[in-house]
Structures are given as C-alpha cells and as structure tokens.
C-alpha cells in the first residue's frame, strides 16, 4: 500500500507539470477553438529562460542571492519570457491566418514548433542542461508519510500549479477581462458588436497560456527533468492529452486531466513496465474519447449549422 501511495505521489507531482501545460492548451482552445501545437515549445523555452536566469544569478552552486529570491526570479523570467514569446508567435504566425481555414493555422503552428526547436538549438547549443536543484535545495528536506517522502521541490510544484490554476480560474470567471475572453469564446462577432477589442483579448489569452507554459518549464527543471530543445515535444503531447481527457476548454478539467495522466503513468511504471507508461496514458485518452467525447469536465455545446 505504501508503494502504491509512493507512486500516486510521484504521479501527482509530474501531473502538476502536465496540468499547467494543459491549462495553456485549454485556454487558447477555449477562446479561439485553435490548437496551438507550438505550446510544448513555449514550455521548453520557459525551461531555458529559467535556467539562464539561475545562471545569471550565479548558478546553482554559487548563487549571489538567497534561494527564496532566486526561485521566484526564475519563475518571473520564465513566465515573462514565455508570455512575450507567445504574444510574438500569435502576432506573426497566427494573426495573419485568423481569417484563413483552420488547417492553415495548424500548419503555421507546426512551423512555429520546428522554428522554436531550431532556434533553441542555435541559441543555447545542443547540450542537455540540468537545473542541479540539489545544489540549492536540500532534496532530503520536506516531510514523510510512512515511507512516502515528499521534498520541498515537489511540494512547491503541486502547490504552485494549484495556485496558478486558481488565479487563472479567478481571472477568467471573476474579472472584466475574463468576461471578455468568455464572450470572444462564445461568439467573436457578437463580442465585437459589444465593443470588445478581440485582438487585445487574444493577446492576453496567449500571454496567459504561454506564461503558464513558462512556469511549467521551470517546475520541470526543478524536478530534475533534463532541459533540451526537444523536451517540449512529448510534454506538449502529454499536456494536450491531459486537456482532452479533462475536457478541452475547461480549466478545472485541464488540471484534473493532468493529474490523471501523471498518476496513470506512474502506476503503469510501478506495476507494469515503464515502457508501457506512455501507451497506457494514450489509451486513457482513447477510452475517454469513446466513453465521454467531451472529456471529464467538458460540456456539450450546441453549434449553429
């Protein structure tokens, strides 16, 4: 039973990262009905931004500031950098195609994804980076429940992702800007007639989604995921799977989907074989689509035909 608990905790921690990536997918899809296939690469760039922020502050073993300053700075740089990059991508790669068929935007998104991978290779080199978290955080610290150990980094990831989800939910559901986003999601033409600046809403949506991807990048780095230019491919796929499982367009759904995928993966690794973990995660996606095509928290929407 303790082993089961250990694997569930492992899954929830990785699931927290998937959930943040899924939130970005779901936010953009919810507002624009557009699948941003380059979202995984924004997560990758966020991980690099956080890494270089850490290096700029002296590196993992010789930081010139206390760790409680360094980590928030890493998050701020990654989220800010990710948001700026997301806005630039929207401006130059998606906006010109907004009136085109959806396929054109999807192909553009694929192009952006490859462009960002190559740009990272050119700018940062091919070497795989590690955050080396153990140099600035005592990995043996934290607390234990029986034989289940949870360290500070892991607590930070789970609490951080829940906090960001709550803030996002509040922004979307309780603010003027959130109301505008929901209006654009329902009917863009009607939103324009009500005086909503659609371009502004879309820019804010991309900034939020990409900022979350940046935060997920730093979290994965702190959890010791290797940082390289291809790290976004699989993570993006997992985030997308989580978004669909939870119900794409639903904020709590993305969160639940992320945790489900993380836990399923960990249990498959623990009780079957790590080689089957991805297969089983994607099998869950197929099953959910067959049983409840709208996802766990998704709602059926009437479409005018």
């Amino acid at each position, binding site marked *: 039973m303790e*082993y089961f608990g*250990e*694997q569930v905790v*492992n*899954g929830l*921690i*990785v699931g927290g990262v998937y959930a943040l990536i899924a939130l970005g997918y779901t936010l953009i899809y919810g507002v624009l009905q557009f699948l941003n296939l380059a979202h995984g690469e924004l997560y990758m760039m966020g991980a690099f931004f956080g890494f270089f922020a850490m290096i700029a502050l002296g590196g993992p073993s010789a930081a010139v500031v206390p760790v409680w300053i360094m980590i928030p700075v890493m998050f701020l740089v990654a989220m800010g950098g990710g948001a700026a990059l997301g806005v630039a991508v929207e401006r130059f790669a998606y*906006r*010109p195609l907004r009136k085109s068929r959806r396929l054109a935007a999807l192909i553009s998104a694929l192009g952006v994804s490859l462009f960002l991978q190559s740009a990272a*290779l050119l700018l940062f*080199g*091919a*070497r*795989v*980076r*590690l955050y*080396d*978290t*153990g140099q600035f955080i005592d*990995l*043996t610290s934290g607390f234990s429940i029986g034989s289940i*150990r949870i*360290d500070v980094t892991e607590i930070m990831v789970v609490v951080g992702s829940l906090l960001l989800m709550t803030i996002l939910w509040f922004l979307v559901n309780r603010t003027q800007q959130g109301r505008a986003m929901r209006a654009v999601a329902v009917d863009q033409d009607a939103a324009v007639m009500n005086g909503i600046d659609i371009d502004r809403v879309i820019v804010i949506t991309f900034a939020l989604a990409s900022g979350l991807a940046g935060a997920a990048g730093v979290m*994965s780095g702190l*959890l*010791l*995921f*290797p940082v*390289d*230019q*291809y*790290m976004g491919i*699989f*993570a993006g796929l997992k985030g997308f799977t989580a978004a669909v499982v939870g119900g794409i367009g639903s904020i709590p759904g993305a969160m639940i989907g992320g945790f489900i995928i993380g836990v399923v*993966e*960990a249990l498959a*690794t*623990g009780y079957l*074989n*790590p*080689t089957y*973990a*991805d297969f089983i995660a994607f099998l869950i996606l197929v099953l959910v689509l067959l049983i409840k095509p709208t996802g766990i928290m998704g709602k059926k929407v009437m479409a005018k035909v």
Partner: protein
Amino acid sequence: MNRRLMMGVSAIAVAGITLAGCAGGSSDEAASEATAEQTAAEETAAEETAPEEEAAVEEAIVCSASFGVMAPLTGGAASIGQEQLNFAKLAVADFNASTEGADYSLVESDTQLDAGQASTQATALIADSGIVGVVGPAGSQEVSAVGPTFAEASMAFVSPSATNPDLTNGDNPTFYRVVPTDAVQGPTDAAFMAEDLGADSVVVIQEKTDYGVGIGDSVAAGLEDAGVAVEVIAVPEEKKSYDDVISKVGDDVDVVFVTFQIAAKSEQVAQSLVKAGKSAVVFGSDGSFSGDFKTPGSYVSAFAPDINQVPAAADVAARFTEEYGEFGTFGPPVYVATQTLLQAAQRACEGGDLSRAGVLAEMPNTMIADSILGGDIEFDGAGDVDGARFYIFQLDDSGAPSLVK
C-alpha cells in the same frame, strides 16, 4: 494597417534575401577574382623559379579529398552529434595544418541516430564522388544499416562509438571502429561491481536504445554469472522523470547501473536516489562519462582514461575547449577515427591512388602512435582496435572522475 505592416515586413524580407544573394554572389565573384589573381601570380612566380626549385615544386604532392561525417546533428542526441562533428573538424584542420600538400575537407551528414535516415544519407554520400571515406555513423543500428551500401561502394567507414560486438563479424567488410566493444565493457563493469564493490543486488536501468540494450544485457549477464541478484528495468528514451522508477529500487540494492547516452539523465537518477533517501550508488556506462554526471561517489566507465589526463591529448583538449566548449566521452574518439581515415588517404595519395578503393586498401596499415585516447591505435583483421580496454572512474567530491581501475 495590418496589410501595410505585412507588406513592409515582406519587402524587408525580399530585400534581405536579395542582399544575401548579392552578397553571396559578390563573395563568390571576389573569391573567383582572387583565385584568378593568385593563379596568375603563381604562374609568373613559377616562370621565374630556378630549375632546381622548379623540380622541388613538382615533387610536392597536393592531396585533396573529402570525408563524410555521419552523426546525429539534430534530434534527441544532437548534443553528442555536434560534439562529434566539432572533433572531426578539429582533426581535419590539424592534419591539413601539419601535413604538406594536404587539403582535406568534411561533408556533414545528419543521421539523427536513426537507421533509416543513416541509410538515406549513406546513399547521398556515395553519390558524391569527392568523398573517399566516412567518419561514423555513431550508433550500432546505423552501422548495420549502412554497412552493405558502403561495402558495395568500397567506402571505408570508421565509427567512433558503435560498440555492438556483432558489427565486426564479417558482414561489414569496410567497417572499422576506434572504441572497444560491449563485449569488453559489459564484463569489465560487471566484474568491478561484483568483485571490487562487493555488490549483492544490482538494478540495471536499461534505456531502450540499441546502445542501452546491448550494454545493459551484457552487464546483466556478467552479474548473473558472478552470482549477483539483478533486476533489469527497461525505460523508453523519451522518459523525463525517474522518480517512479527509483521507487522500484529496493533499500537492499547496492548499485543502480544506468545505460543512458546522455550523462544528464544519469545525474537525474543519482539525484532522485538522494531525494528518495536510498543508499544505492549509481554506476554509469561510458555514455555517462561527462561533466554533467557529477554526484560524488558514483562510478562511470570509459573507453579511454579521461583525455584531460592523457598527456598526448592535452593540446587537443585545450584547443577544443577553447573553440567549442566542454566535451564528453563521445567526441575524442571522433578525432582519432578521422585521423585514421586521413592517414590512410594520405598514404593512398602518395601512392598515386587517392580513391575510395585506395583508402580502403590502406586502412589495415593504420598506426596512430600515442593517440589522444591514450595508447597506439592499430586495427586487427576484423576492424576492431587491437588491445582495447575499458577504464573505471569514481566521481570525487567535486564531481571530477578519478581513475580507480
């Protein structure tokens, strides 16, 4: 407004492309002019040269040819491929600078560590008649894929990292390698864990690549023969988090042997063990031999003593670091592999047959004395290095490797 902006951006892009084209053209024209001027000057100088000097000029042989470099320049193993390419560049530059009349160059070929891609690239290299030999490919699966194609074209190819023992069983007659095989590494590592570390229980985390499976199986077999309890956990190459795998490692496990080709993953496993409060020590195969794997007390094997500790390699290591940055274990053998082809090509050229067949015929005569890998490099009849062995290091408190066996 948007249309105007788009038109502006398009105009800038078109102008940029046009300028780049013009610049390229200008540079080509300038180069042609410079070459023509140089040729004219050389002709004038030759006319004015005294008869005895003329004879000396005639004796100087110019040897010019190209070599393909097959490496994973992009894809998941790009960090390895880029390092390999840079070591090949350095070897060619050094050889051209130190050998009179030598004018060798490289043609880059990206295999992405994929057998299918390697096969396609091999065909492209063969189609280039200027190429007389190939450095690479890196992976054993790629060597198997390109071996018959290169054999048909009489193209010698030297891998700096393919360690599958079966590759030199006669199926690939034009194949050579400068590293020892898994048949050497597996038993060496297993014997060290069983005898020197006194391990009773070992977990092998085996990455599902040709390299990882080959060395993992070899180590597991060696440990079982020595009476050590072994559990093999296969993990996909794409796996990012190892905490769930580490949960499977029991408290009684003495050593976790990892077969990654990227050292950062070995470090990730070592730190995950620390997080989980487990006392097992990590032992990495040669793919982990890099500064990225640095948890104190860990072990790692390598096909050469750290070249930073090889006196013959000091100059090369320093120049490489200065020009390209830090390097791991996969780069230095490329320097030696390239040297073997350069030597063979130079001998073939001096013998009047700088062709693929000429280079291939010279390969068995290769002898690199005091190589940067520490020791002489000579090939046996099968294409393997004579007397190759593996070395084992322990990482000290600063993470630096210290030779223990």
